[in-house]
């Protein structure tokens, strides 16, 4: 079995099965990420605008969007005239 430094994941792969839940979550995150980044490529948007365009509930958009902000692919832009909703944009 592979126990060479830098390749030990192969060792655990032989011993342990990756759960279906983990695979599903990864697929779902990749899908949401692609959709959000695709939409923001067209124009800056608020959470509600993204939700409408992608047909996803606001809290789901918030979770994925804020995660994309955390990991540096999206950033907050301006806030609207009512000081209520920020728009979000791709980080250049």
């Amino acid at each position: 079995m592979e126990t060479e430094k830098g390749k030990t994941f192969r060792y655990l792969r032989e011993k342990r099965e990756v759960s279906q839940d983990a695979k599903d979550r990864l697929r779902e995150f990749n899908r949401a990420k692609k959709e959000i980044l695709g939409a923001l490529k067209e124009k800056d948007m608020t959470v509600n605008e993204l939700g409408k365009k992608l047909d996803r509930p606001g809290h789901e958009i918030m979770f994925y969007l804020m995660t994309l902000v955390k990991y540096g692919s999206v950033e907050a832009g301006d806030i609207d005239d009512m000081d209520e909703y920020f728009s979000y944009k791709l980080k250049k």
Partner: protein
Amino acid sequence: MSDEIRAASYDALVIGGGIAGGEAALDLANNGYKVLLVEKDLSIGGKMILLSKVFPTLDCAACITTPKVSEISRHPGITVFTGAEVTSIEKKGEREFETAVTKRPRYVVEEDCTACQLCEEVCPVVVHDEYQYRLVGRKAAFIPFSIASPRVAAIDIENCTLCGACEKACPPKCIDFTQETEKYIIKTGTVIVATGFKLFDPLKIPRYGYGVYKNVLTSMEMERQLAPTRPFNTILRPGDGKMPDRIAYVLCTGSRDDTIGNPVCSQICCMYSLKQAQLLMGALPMADVTIYYINIRSFGKGFEEFYEQAKGMGISFVKGKVGKITETETGNLILRYEDINENRVMEEEHDMVVLAVGVLPNTDPLSFFRNGELKADQFSFVDQAEVLSSPARTSVKGVFVAGTASGPMDIPDSILSAGAASSEAISYLKQ
């Protein structure tokens, strides 16, 4: 799991690395005793390390906790096991305890990790970040939070897809998927239980809509939103990203409530709500904050002045019991409450509701001793056998309790109680 059982001995075992356990460990080590600190989580610091600021001084929580946890981690007299749990304790005789400890694999060699976060950058998996109370995501390869101690990555093996990207990216090659659970038998002369408290789960009061209405938060979620290492760019509604204008606090959520089985006052919720309300007024100067309360219990040093300060800032106080919360189409929340002073039922609309969730016992320590020697009080906190004359003593001679493991209390009282536990432990060791 490896079959090998490692043996080690120390003067004292401290279980739980929150502020109480950390303080007790430091007291003992500063007096020349060798201490093993066993912490379940990936970092020491307990709940305090995740707070924004602290009542009643409004000092930054991280500024107090960070030097403390680093002193604990660097102290030559303290060995820290994170990701570790006590499975059993046996008292063999006076000053002779034998404890079985299990340490989960972190899949990272702690000493070699430089916290560069390159593993985190390349890891494709995103799950809810428990240290941000699920408001944002984290990777499966992750550093728990920026001021974690140890500041070392860990692999969340349940969510890892074993793609190997982190291992390839790690410069010192310290990710190691061959790590296994380690078992220890630890011999010590005394034990301090500092396993802290649990937060009330508001799902147990469905009429408040927590979990269904996304703009109903717990106080710990708000604590994270107010911290400098917050999950969002500012304070936002998790349901739609709106910056809230009208924020309500519902005090005594899960405290002083026989219907959910917790008749006791949590002692901290009034004060942390007053604190958060003041911080919110600072962060969102245009916001209206209303606190719905039964009684405000501001009994500690400087607490009444803190309450007066909150009133002076324009925070509204409504003596009212909230019966039900409903949601409007815009995600706003309607609170239906009994106005106790006016003696009538009223309704009020808010943008966001914070539930001041109460303190519940962590019952872990009750199963440490096989025959139930460690007794609980009537509310399932660790019983203080001689609460007036010797508050750190438990039902087992040589085992002491520190902090919220014995009941609700704030940080200053947790630290005081840790001092009592460590000095009682030292007296016991010297007998």
